[in-house]
C-alpha cells in the first residue's frame, strides 16, 4: 500500500496556475527526488502534502488519511509529516534544545525530561550534541540545517519532506547535511527531497522526478533518468545542470 497517493492535484495562485495536474504514488520507505527548474511547481507540490499550501482540485491521501479541510485530518497529517526548509526556519529566540523539544512538549504533550533525552539522542544522530544550549544565530548554516532535521525528526514522523535543504548553504557545508540525509534514507525513512544535488539523487534515490511548468515531465529510476532520459525537456535540464 502506498503511503502517499496524489491524484490530479491542481493549484492556482491568483490567476497563475502552479500545479496543472500532478499524480503520483510513493511506497513506504521509498526515497523520491524531485528536480526541475525554478517556478516549475516542485516546492509548491511538496508544500501541498503537509498543507502549507492548499491544493484546489484533485486529492492527496497520506497514510490513508485524505487531506481535506477537516482540521482533524490536517493535524493528523502534519504530525506524521516532517518538513525541512531551504532557509532552516529555526526559532531564533529559543536554544537548539528548546527548538527540538518544543513540538514534542506542546503538540505531542510529552514530558519535558523525556523530550530532552530524545532531543539529545537526535542531536547525537545529526552530530552536534555539543551545540544543544546555543542559540541558532550562533551556529553555522550547515549546523542550523542539521538542527532543523533533528527538530522535524523529534515528532517521529513517518514521512520527511525536504524543500531544497542545501540551496542556502556554502559548498563546504552541503556535505555534512547530505550525509545526515543519506543516513536517514538508509534507516528506511520515507523521503521526498526537492534538490539540485544530482549526486545525492544518483546515490540514494529510488526514483527521480522532473517537474516543469506545473507538470510532471518524467519519472524514472535514477540510472534510467540520468543515463537514458526519455523526454527532451529532461535532456535539456540535465545538460544545463550537469
Amino acid at each position, binding site marked *: 500500500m502506498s503511503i502517499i497517493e496524489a491524484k490530479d492535484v491542481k493549484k492556482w495562485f491568483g*490567476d497563475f496556475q502552479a500545479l496543472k495536474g500532478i499524480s503520483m504514488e510513493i511506497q513506504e520507505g521509498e526515497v523520491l527526488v524531485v528536480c526541475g527548474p525554478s517556478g516549475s511547481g516542485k516546492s509548491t507540490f511538496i508544500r501541498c502534502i503537509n498543507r502549507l499550501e492548499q491544493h484546489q482540485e484533485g486529492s492527496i491521501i497520506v497514510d490513508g488519511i485524505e487531506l481535506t*479541510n*477537516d482540521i482533524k485530518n490536517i493535524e493528523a497529517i502534519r504530525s506524521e509529516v516532517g518538513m525541512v526548509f531551504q532557509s532552516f526556519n529555526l526559532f531564533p529566540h529559543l536554544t537548539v534544545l528548546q527548538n527540538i523539544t518544543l513540538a514534542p512538549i506542546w503538540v505531542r504533550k510529552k514530558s519535558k525530561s523525556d523530550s530532552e533525552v530524545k532531543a539529545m539522542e537526535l542531536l547525537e544522530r545529526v552530530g552536534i550534541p555539543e551545540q544543544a544550549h546555543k542559540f541558532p544565530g550562533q551556529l553555522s548554516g550547515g549546523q542550523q540545517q542539521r538542527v532543523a532535521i533533528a527538530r522535524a525528526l523529534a515528532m517521529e514522523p513517518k514521512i520527511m519532506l525536504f524543500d531544497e535543504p542545501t540551496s542556502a548553504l556554502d559548498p563546504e557545508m552541503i556535505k555534512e547535511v547530505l550525509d545526515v540525509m543519506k543516513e536517514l534514507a538508509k534507516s528506511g525513512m520515507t523521503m521526498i527531497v526537492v534538490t539540485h544535488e544530482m549526486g545525492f539523487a544518483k546515490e540514494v534515490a529510488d526514483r527521480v522526478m522532473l517537474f516543469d511548468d506545473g507538470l510532471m515531465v518524467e519519472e524514472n529510476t535514477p540510472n534510467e533518468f540520468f543515463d537514458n532520459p526519455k523526454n527532451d525537456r529532461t535532456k535539456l535540464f540535465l545538460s544545463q545542470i550537469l
Partner: protein
Amino acid sequence: MVKLLSKIGAFFRNVVVLKWAVQFIFLGGLIALIFNYLNIAVGNLANTNIAFSWGFLGETPGVSIAEGLYTLPKSGLQMLQTGMLNMLRITVTGIVAATFFGTILGIARLSNNYIVEKTATSLLEVVRNVPLLVQILFFQALILSLPRLEVYDVGSVLFHASSKGVALSWPNRQDGAWMFMLYFLITIYISNRVYKQRVKLLEEEGRETKPFLWSFSALIILLAAGWFGGYRIVGIIGFVSGFISQGLELLPGLFYQALLSILAGYFSFRSVRKQIQSKRSGELQGKYSDDDYFKMIITIVIALIFIALMFAPVGQGIAKFLVGDEPTFKSDWGLPQFFGGISNALDWSITGTPYELNMAEIQQVGTTKFKRYSNEVGKSLTVGYFATWMGVVIYTAIFISEIVRAGIMAVSKGQSEAGLSLGLRRSALLRLIVLPQAVRIMLPPMGNQYLNLAKNTSLGIAVGFPEVVAVGQTLYNQEGQTLPVFLIWMIFFSTVSLTLSSIVNYYNRKLKIVER
C-alpha cells in the same frame, strides 16, 4: 444516526467553516455589544431629556468667538466652521514653518561646527522632553507678562508685542489677491513645464539649453505681467463658476442623494468587476477562494448600506448642506454658494495691485480707553494663536530635524563617495544624488509629523485659541449635545488626516516613479 453525527462533527472541523464561524461569532458579539451600549445611551438620553439631535447646527448659539471667520456665529454650523478654519490656518502655516525650521535645525545638527551642533542638540533635548502643553502655556505666560497695549500710543509700528498679542507688518490681501494667487499657481505650473521642455531638448539634442534660466525668466516675466493687472485673466474661471453656481441652484437635494448613491453603486460595481477579472487571464481561469467571495459580498454590502444612508436623514442632511439650505443651517457653505464665492472672488472688473505692504497699527476701540491691533492693515496675532503656533511649530520642527538628520545621514555615506568619484561637484552631488534619496526616506515620517501637528493644534484650547475642539466644547456646553459634537470632531480630524496623508502618499508615489 451515528453517521449523521460524525458528518456534523466533520462539518464543524472544516477549516473554512471554522474560520468563518469564528469571525461571524466575533462580529455578532461586537454588534451585540455596540447595540447594547447604544441602547443604554438612548435610554440615558431619554432620561435626561436631551435626545440625540443635530438641531443645534441650525440654532444660534448666542456666544461670540475670539477670532476667525464668524466672530458672532448665527448657527452652530457657522461656529464649527470658524473653529475648523482656525485649526486649518494654524495647521497649514505651521507645517510650512515647522518644515523650514526643522530642516535648518537638522542641517545644523550635522554641522562640523562644534558650537552650532551642540546648540541645536541641546535645543532638541529641551523641547523633546517637555510636554507640548507646558510649552504652549509658557509662551502664553511670556506674552501675558508684556505690558498692556493701553500703555502704548496709537499709530503705525513695524513690529509690536504686548499682552494683547503680536502685530507684524504684512503684505495685506487686496481685492485681486485671490485671483493673483491662482494666477501664481498657474505661472508655477507653466514655468515647470518650460523647465521640463528644455530638459527634454537638452537630452534629445545634446546641446546646452539652460533649462533653469529659461524657466526662471518665464516665471519672472509672467509674475511681473500678472502683478500689474495681468492676473485678471483668471477672471474666466470666475465667469464660468458664476454659470455653474446658477445652474446648481436649480438642483434639488434629491439630486445629490441620487448622485452619491449612483457613484457608490458604480464604484462597488467596478471593484467587483475588477476582482472577477483579476482571476481571469487568457484561457487560464483561477479559482475563487472564500476570501474572494467575501470581498465581493462586503463591497456590495457596504455600497448598499451607503445608498440606504443616503436616503436616510443622514443623506438628507448632507444634501441640505450641499444645496446650501439657508434656513436650516444659516451657513453659506453649500455648493452654489461655493461657486458663487469663486465667481465673486475671481472677477474681471477687479483692478489694482493684489497685495499691499502695510505697517501694523494700534487703534483705539471706538471711544473707550481700550486699544487693539488693526485687523485691516498689518497682521495681528492673538495670544492664543501666537502661543499655540509657537508651541506646535517648535515642537514639530524638533522632530522634523531628527528626520532630516537621519535622512541625510542614511544617504550620504557610500552614495556621495560614488558621486564624487564620478566627478560631480558638491552642489550637483547634493542636488542630484543626496537630496532625491534623502527626501524619499524622509517623506513618510514627515507625513506622520504633519499629522501630529494637525492633532496637536487642539491644545490651543488651553490658551483660549478657538480651534475646532475648543469651539465644539463651547457648543456642547451650550446645547448639551456631546455625542454629535464628538462625531463631528471625529469626521473632521479623520478628513484632515486622510487629506494630509494622501498628499504625502501622492508625492511618495511620484518620487518612487522618478526613481525608476
